[in-house]
């Protein structure tokens, strides 16, 4: 019988390559934006075992009423990132956002808006530091955690 704690399922198939300079860039944005949620776009390419991120973009959060725990990524910023990606021969491979003072795990709100086929990177941020960074991919009705590699 399994106990009450269920470890997250880590997909053997999906892996997201997120090099250190990009993690540091995301961490700086996350800390700078605290206590509000920040968000953006991951641009890269498909790899044999997942996706490889080559550039990260910050986008505006249009949800100003609940900016501490909700985000609506400005679609105009997404359109700009899509154009930049296509010009570089890349594509949008996912999105990132922060959870101030919350775990780096997707909420029901995250699930409702998610699409199959994208990586969703979440950074847990508390004050002056990022506590955790995890990546998730929708698999049917639920999220599956991805392996995050450099």
């Amino acid at each position: 019988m399994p106990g009450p704690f269920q470890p997250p399922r880590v997909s053997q198939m999906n892996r997201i390559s997120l090099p250190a300079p990009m993690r540091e860039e995301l961490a700086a944005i996350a800390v700078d934006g605290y206590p509000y949620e920040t968000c953006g776009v991951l641009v890269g390419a498909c790899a044999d075992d997942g996706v490889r991120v080559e550039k990260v973009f910050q986008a505006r959060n249009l949800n100003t009423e609940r900016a501490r725990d909700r985000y609506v990524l400005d679609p105009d910023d997404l359109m700009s990132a899509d154009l930049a990606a296509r010009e570089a021969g890349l594509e949008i491979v996912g999105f990132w956002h922060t959870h101030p003072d919350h775990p780096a795990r997707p909420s029901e709100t995250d699930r409702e808006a998610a699409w199959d086929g994208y990586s969703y990177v979440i950074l847990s941020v508390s004050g002056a530091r990022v506590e955790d960074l995890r990546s998730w991919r929708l698999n049917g009705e639920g999220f599956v955690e991805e392996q995050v590699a450099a």
Partner: protein
Amino acid sequence: MSRVIVRIPTPLRGFAGGNSEIAAEGADVGAVLSAIGADHPELLERVMKDDGQPREFVNIYLGSDNVRTLDGMNTPVGEGDVLSILPAVAGGAG
């Protein structure tokens, strides 16, 4: 009738014959998407509701303009215009 290029986001390409772009004809945004739907009904189903409006978590851009800020699905298109289908991204900890 104008011939328009429609850009397909990666997760929907499996419903578009694997294509990243599809050319289609129509007088406005809704007509172009409906024309694509004739060949790719599963794609159209994921982009447009039965009432002809975009689904909640979908944005459609004509060039660099969100059609929601124009005349929606009735926005006229011109020869060589580019329509982009994009996810509407939202969420958060709460």
